[in-house]
């Protein structure tokens, strides 16, 4: 489904111009433009960027990040943050791997380790909504807590999986096409699922409302505290699951490996048009945001740029993309006025 943010003003139908306006006003549009522009730049610089293999490679790099980021965006739309997703991304598969190495069956190990993000999600929700502590602080605490504990659990050594089972193919195996892997499918599934929930269900409406002006949702009978708590859980569970898909496809999970991802997931959400102040955001756009980051990673390698450039580039692109997004929205609004005027005359 194409996710046009329905909160946007919708111009009259049946005009190709109006259709264009709607497209430009869609929140995901800005990030789609950035993907194309970056693609063209890298193609010109490297000559081999736009090919099945490279595009598949971008998806593979972006997939686990996207699974995590769409959860972050969903939570941000309801007005809260989770700065611990990267640490959850690293910690969940570590626990799972440790359990498997203690000769647990992989499936129970998976479900038991997923109780950790669930527990943290509930904790974040309760601390934020009951005690009024900003989620920024709570989840920052979880970030250090999770990172610290993961060093204790592993003794600083990466956890490897000892025997390959069906589950690992399901979560991380190859699709046998252009080097695509299972997390790419999970990325599409999770993005689709969250986009549908956000835009088409009552819970999605409540999620928007929870991120709106404080008190309005509750005054109208929306259980905003419960909605936020559920969204903290969704976010943490997706982060844990993203970690598992990464573990399953890479074969190892290292303590501390998620620290930078805590913020990169946030960057992906913002690249996709999600506001830091709640209520505004796009799930599909956020997936695009993760793809932009995958594109950068792949592209910089292809053009032979030094690896150190990666993080600097992400910073630059973040600022440029947000500006592009803003400009496009402005263009959409003035175009809309033009279409409306023409329709009247």
């Amino acid at each position, binding site marked *: 489904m194409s996710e046009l943010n*329905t*909160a*946007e*003003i*919708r111009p*009259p139908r049946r005009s190709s111009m109006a259709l264009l306006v709607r497209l430009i006003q869609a929140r995901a549009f800005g990030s789609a433009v950035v993907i194309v522009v970056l693609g063209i730049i890298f193609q010109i610089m490297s000559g081999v960027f736009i090919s099945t293999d490279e595009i598949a490679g971008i998806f593979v790099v972006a997939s686990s990040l996207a699974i995590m980021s769409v959860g972050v965006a969903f939570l941000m739309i309801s007005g809260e943050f989770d700065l611990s997703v990267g640490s959850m991304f690293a910690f969940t598969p570590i626990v799972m791997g440790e359990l498997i190495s203690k000769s647990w069956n992989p499936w129970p190990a998976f479900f038991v380790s997923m109780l950790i993000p669930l527990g943290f999600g509930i904790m974040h929700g309760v601390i934020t909504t009951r005690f009024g502590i900003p989620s920024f602080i709570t989840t920052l605490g979880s970030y250090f807590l999770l990172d610290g504990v993961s060093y204790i659990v592993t003794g600083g050594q990466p956890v490897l999986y000892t025997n390959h089972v069906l589950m690992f193919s399901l979560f991380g195996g190859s699709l046998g096409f252009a080097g695509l892997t299972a997390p790419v499918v999970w990325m599409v599934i999770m993005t689709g699922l969250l986009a549908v*929930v956000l835009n*088409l*269900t*009552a*819970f*999605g*409406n*409540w999620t*928007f*409302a929870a991120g*709106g*002006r404080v*008190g*309005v*949702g509750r*005054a*109208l*009978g*929306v259980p905003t505290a419960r909605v936020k708590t559920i969204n903290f859980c969704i976010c943490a569970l997706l982060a844990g699951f993203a970690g598992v898909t990464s573990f399953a496809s890479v074969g190892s999970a290292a303590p501390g490996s998620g620290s930078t991802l805590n913020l990169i997931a946030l960057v992906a959400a913002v690249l996709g048009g999600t506001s830091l102040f709640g*209520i*505004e955001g796009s799930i599909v756009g956020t997936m695009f945001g993760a793809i932009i980051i995958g594109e950068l990673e792949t592209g910089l390698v292809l053009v032979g740029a030094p690896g150190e450039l990666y993080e600097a580039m992400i910073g630059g692109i973040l600022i440029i993309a947000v500006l592009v997004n803003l400009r496009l929205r402005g263009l959409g609004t003035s175009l809309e006025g033009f279409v*409306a005027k023409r329709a009247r005359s």
Partner: protein
Amino acid sequence: MTEVQPVPADRVTPLIQLVDVCMDFGPMRALDTVNLHVNAGEVVGLLGDNGAGKSTLLKVITGYHQPTSGDVIVFGKKTRLASPKVAREFGIETVYQDLALIDELSIWRNFFLGEELCRRFGPIKFMQRKEMRRIAEAELAQIGIRRVRSAEQRVLGMSGGERQSLAIIRAIYFGARVLLLDEPTAALSVRETQRVFTAVRAARDAGHGVLYIDHNIGHTFSVVDRVVLIERGRVAADLRREDTSVEEVVEILGAGPSAENIRRGKE
């Protein structure tokens, strides 16, 4: 005229009635033997200075406070409004000036917020967006808001009066019998105020009871059928509009220290 007459049994049952309601906060008496009623098809203005007890009264009616003594009678039955939720279930709906709408969301999302029309598929409730859009547009058109082209528009693009009106017709649509309007025209232009009055009158004509709370006597007079004046926690007067005048009301309230403030209306 300073005593509230109990409504005779042969007349209509008030939608809501307070009988000898007192409200104490520690040693402080915020409401002192207050008698008040709102009938169906009637707009009652509640006037009084800051601190006179209007807000406390409002909170008793909406179930935020339970009175220390006295009875709350809803539809002729003695009722305990234990919480705002219970009050809502009885059809007592408050339209707050600043807590009514979420600006960034579209009109239909606001209109149905918390009451979405849904089709269930297992645990998931899918919204019936087209139907909600249609209803919201029809309801807006009915009270003469025609500037809105589509319910997909954000509330952000509506004027202050249009927003208040939207909040009022939404409350009515969802079965509110008694509407509590807390300074609905504060910070609105004259024309926008008229728009809100149109919605208030539409509610009255449809048989709802409206309790209209304001500082501005002039505004209140142009829309109410009756005014109740509150002073230091007591009902100072309960007057039908045709039996009184702005001057008389100012005079009654003028006994208090800040009549000038009331006359000018709070900015």
